[in-house]
């Protein structure tokens, strides 16, 4: 007996992601799913973003990590609400993990939630977690070949941050090749060359993020 099924394997995750998105949209909150390799500078970008936007934007952070609360502790020092999710070895966050921690945030007071995913260029790209946008961080020291090696995470991103550009003089990173590859994989993503050490490029990132938050608020009203 043959039974036609034709069901999306990630349907259950996508349903929960849609519920999370709906709940956060109703509260007018813009949600970023921040992705990238371990050590690419996701947490540093986040720390800079908190400091840079603190006076204008009310934000909270959900930290995904395999086992530790190290990143959450870094975020906490900046005085923003942070929730830690430990995946216990799991390589990505899924929608249900986000759904279960939402009650611990004061949603009525927030403009922005940044969810820092587990450091990984592969798995997080496949799971929607209720975000408005995915943002992918690639650091110069990882090499310019990564977009073609891990195309999905770059294809899914609304913004790509090329981080640690202050290190360019010390590497053989081919910036033109990186830009060409990212823009052919994903012609619609904005691409920001930034350094969390020197601060270069960060105002452009803040500007883009603020505009997204403003548009989300306008849509929610």
């Amino acid at each position: 007996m043959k039974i036609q099924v034709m069901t999306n394997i990630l349907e259950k995750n996508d349903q929960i992601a849609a519920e999370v998105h709906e709940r956060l949209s109703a509260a007018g909150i813009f949600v970023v799913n921040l992705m990238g390799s371990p050590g690419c500078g996701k947490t540093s970008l986040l720390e800079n973003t908190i400091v840079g936007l603190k006076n204008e934007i009310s934000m909270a952070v959900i930290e995904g990590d395999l086992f530790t609360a190290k990143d959450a502790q870094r975020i906490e020092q900046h005085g923003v609400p942070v929730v830690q999710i430990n995946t216990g070895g799991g390589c990505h966050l899924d929608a249900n993990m986000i759904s279960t921690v939402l009650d611990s945030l004061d949603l009525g007071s927030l403009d922005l939630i940044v969810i820092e995913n587990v450091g990984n260029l592969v798995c997080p790209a496949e799971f929607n977690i209720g975000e408005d946008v995915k943002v992918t961080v690639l650091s110069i020291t990882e090499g310019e070949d990564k977009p073609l090696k891990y195309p999905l995470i770059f294809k899914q991103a609304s913004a790509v941050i090329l981080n640690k550009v202050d290190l360019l003089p010390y590497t053989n990173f081919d910036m033109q090749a990186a830009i060409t590859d990212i823009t052919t994989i994903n012609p619609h993503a904005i691409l920001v060359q930034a350094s969390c050490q020197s601060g270069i490029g960060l105002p452009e990132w803040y500007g883009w993020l603020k505009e997204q938050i403003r548009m989300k608020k306008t849509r929610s009203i």
Partner: protein
Amino acid sequence: MHEMAIAQGILDIVLKTAAENQVAKVTGIKLLIGQMTQVEPECLKFGFTALSMGSIAEGANVEIKIVPLVGLCNSCRQEFPVENYCFLCPKCNSASVTVVSGRELAVEYLEGE
């Protein structure tokens, strides 16, 4: 290894479908996996074998069809195979391209008795 999470999703769908159709033993499962998914087929089969042990889907033959990545240009309506992940239309160079196939992660059908 997120294949385990995907394998669990497959098992959930298979067991639910089998129950709905009074299938006592699942013998075969056909999966559609898009070319642009982050799924390693052998890893997925291994995960499914492990998870399905002791269930009515234990020992089922898992067949995987890889679905090629195809784009459709919204400007000139050209359909084209996406090569080297270049999502620009090869005919008119437009960046407005919709992915027609290649992102599938689906259970197409199952066989049982």
